[in-house]
């Protein structure tokens, strides 16, 4: 079986947040914020929205502590083109800001929001290719 400490903790966070329906609700709000934000939306111009929404869903599932298949290498590869386009900490911070606001809009308790942000934060070096 899984490592009881990490696996149970993650499952608990995902369950506490409401599982997949909660992810779907959050993606809708989160992605709308992201593409409406002139600080970061240029990175999303011209990309297929359905594919992009599916990626946002995978990302949020991971940040919610849910089942996912992301590796650090995937994160690196997936964002390499954006890093070349000038993706930096400033943009990463903006995305985290939208993630936090999305969860507040959904009335998620502050300690859970902190856990989600911490998981998302853990991808920073890979996303930014450092």
């Amino acid at each position, binding site marked *: 079986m899984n490592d009881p400490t990490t696996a149970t903790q993650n499952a608990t966070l995902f369950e506490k947040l409401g599982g997949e329906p909660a992810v779907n609700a959050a993606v*809708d709000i989160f*992605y709308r914020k992201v593409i*409406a934000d002139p600080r970061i939306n240029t990175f999303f111009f011209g990309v297929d*929205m359905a594919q992009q929404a599916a990626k946002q869903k995978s990302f949020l599932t991971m940040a919610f502590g849910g089942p996912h*298949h992301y590796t650090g290498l995937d994160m690196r590869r997936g964002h390499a083109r954006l890093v070349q386009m000038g993706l930096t900490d400033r943009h990463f911070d903006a995305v985290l800001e939208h993630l936090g606001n999305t969860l507040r809009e959904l009335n998620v308790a502050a300690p859970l929001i902190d856990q989600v942000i911490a998981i998302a934060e853990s991808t920073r070096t890979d996303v930014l290719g450092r």
Partner: protein
Amino acid sequence: MPVVCHEGQSVELAEGQSVLDALLAQGVPVPYACRAGICQSCLMRAVEGQPPASSQQGLKETLRLQNYFLACVCHPTENLRVALPSAQELNVPATVTGLRRLNAEIIELTLMAHAPLDYRAGQFIAVINKDTGQGRSYSLASVPGEEESLHLHVRRLPGGRISGWIHEELRAGQTIEIRGPAGDCFYVPGRPEQPLLLIGTGSGLAPLYGILRDALARGHWGPIRLFHGSRNAGGIYLRNELRELARRHPRFDYVPCLSGPDISPGYASGRAHDAALAEVPDLKGWRVFLCGHPDMVQQAQMRAYLAGASLQEIHADAFQSNHAGAAS
């Protein structure tokens, strides 16, 4: 990198290379079309080794359990021995029961499958030429329960091998093969009051015509608005049938749209999705179906979402190139 073995021939995958590309480079004639994990043309089976779950998305459970996978999106983490599925494993024979011209470019192909096909209006099937082994996916305009036969709208593409074959060589009474169905662009029962917005261009009308009639047959009573676009009036088809449906169902409303310079009475001028979003600027709570030209679908997806439609409720025809003009 993992090694893929096909009929005694082995090839090591290059970084980022799909199983499809590796096999094509070896001269293995794997059929393919969309290269995006959608059309299922490049369906293969792993005889040894486990294909990654990401290469099995959209496949029926029975196929997944038998280790079928889509070669175009298969980036395995272990060695695989693979085989092309034989025709009798997956294909179903079907008799051509009719060929009817819908407009200058599009004909309706009517088929009777030799075994019952469990499908939803708006899903797609592949039509396969047994002589060449080539196939192409087309959306189903027919509705199970309403029609016994399968109806497809086939646009003649310049240089299109399958569409050319269907337009010029197929005759009623001939037997061909089909495979499928697949796809998740169809009416979802359970919310008969929900407003539906259907936007299509060209032969993208096919799945919408099926979805619309499926919804009506299932007692949908919320508003249904259909916008069908073409450059000129010659590209608009099934107009009389749709007007008749609109007459019989007051909650259904049909707007043919012309994006070219012509202005004709009875048509909206401008592109279908522009006309639709101008008439329905707030899409909160709507379910949206988009089929046709990929540029239209892509723009309309974004605009429908920004107009308030939920991501979960925007369905796009997965198999767009039929309606768009990519040659096959």
